[in-house]
């Protein structure tokens, strides 16, 4: 979706302002949001793409005026309610009103965390067929504007680029975020000239690379 998350090339947000000696978390509430998001995600009731969509579908005014963990918190609340873990009333009161929902597995324990984190969640899958493109091929990105999740950012649409890496087939987020399954698709890294993306006044030496799935691309 063309939501507030699609920030590439937008303007007016101000300077970057890196923080000196920044701590990993700013206060306990950030620790709690981070840990709760990971711990609840571990039940597997939503995948990473559904999690991203929960964040990017927040109203743009809210998304842009929230800190990042505020965005995570708002999205976690949405996901908990949508998946029957809690009700809006419970979130407002902090008190249990409904019985807990049945759990697909036991809650995460401290002991299993190192192994689970080390395993991660690889996104590569069996290839659905031969790759359409190879390194060096010129491609053109499609102009799509779905209301659903996509990783083809606005600034990368309808642009000509060149394949520079082929990564095998990966979970296709446009399907996965809608609960339509992994739908594995070939994933490529595509190289775009800054001039193609932003106009002729850009430095001709500069390039942007993005990881794009085959359904985003047509031969140029």
């Amino acid at each position: 979706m063309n939501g507030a998350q699609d920030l590439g090339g937008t303007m007016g947000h101000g300077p970057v302002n890196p923080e000196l000696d920044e701590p990993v978390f700013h206060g306990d509430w950030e620790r709690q949001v981070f840990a709760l998001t990971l711990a609840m995600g571990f039940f597997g009731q939503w995948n990473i793409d559904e999690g991203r969509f929960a964040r990017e579908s927040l109203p743009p005014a809210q998304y842009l005026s929230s800190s990042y963990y505020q965005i995570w918190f708002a999205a976690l609340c949405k996901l908990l309610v949508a998946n029957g873990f809690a009700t809006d009333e419970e979130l407002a009161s902090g008190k249990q009103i409904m019985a807990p929902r049945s759990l697909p597995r036991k809650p995460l324990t401290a002991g299993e965390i190192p192994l689970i984190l080390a395993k991660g969640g690889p996104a590569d899958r069996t290839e659905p067929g031969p790759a359409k493109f190879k390194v060096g091929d010129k491609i053109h990105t499609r102009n799509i504007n779905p209301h659903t999740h996509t990783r083809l950012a606005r600034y990368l649409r309808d642009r000509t680029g060149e394949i520079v890496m082929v990564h095998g087939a990966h979970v296709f987020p446009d399907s996965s975020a809608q609960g339509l399954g992994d739908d594995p698709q070939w994933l490529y890294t595509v190289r775009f000239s800054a001039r193609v993306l932003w106009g002729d006044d850009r430095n001709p030496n500069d390039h942007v690379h993005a990881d794009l799935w085959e359904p985003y691309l047509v031969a140029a």
Partner: protein
Amino acid sequence: MSKDHDHSELSETALRVKALESLLIEKGYVDPAALDELVDTYETKVGPRNGARVVAKAWSDPEYRKWLISDATAAIASLGFAGRQGEHMVAVENTPNVHNMVVCTLCSCYPWPVLGLPPVWYKSAPYRSRAVIDPRGVLAEFGVKIDEDTEVRVWDSTAEIRYLVIPMRPTGSEDMKEDELAALVTRDSMIGTGMALKPGAVGR
């Protein structure tokens, strides 16, 4: 909005988060010890010192450097860094002709096993919006000046591939050992918004 306003918003958030945590514990969904372990992992165990060891080894060991560039996931895993948000690693190397810089315009993708959790600025609108359209302007704000003739390569992490920048080995470091070299490798140098430190300097 005023500073006070921001503060009251934040304390309101903190209260709501606390209520959520209590609720999820009360409902038996989460174990407080597991939450502590998750926080502790990323607060004390996983961070940019991991990535610095990867870079220092690549600087010191030509075979490892080759492996890192051809199969970063395996080369990094060989040092014990793997897993969540680092399942598919790619290492990109700075040279006198190429400067690499990593961003995630759409969210906050970042190679956790080698760099830990991303700093606020990396996840914020100013960096995410500008890194792809005005990388040199952003670099200038970080005090990094790149020659007009040098290519700036921005990597927008739009999939589950995670990028690690191998900064240039600083001059004057020729005789240093791997452990000493690692101390020169800053977090920002591995994102591409900084350079490795010169021997004798300190930085973030």
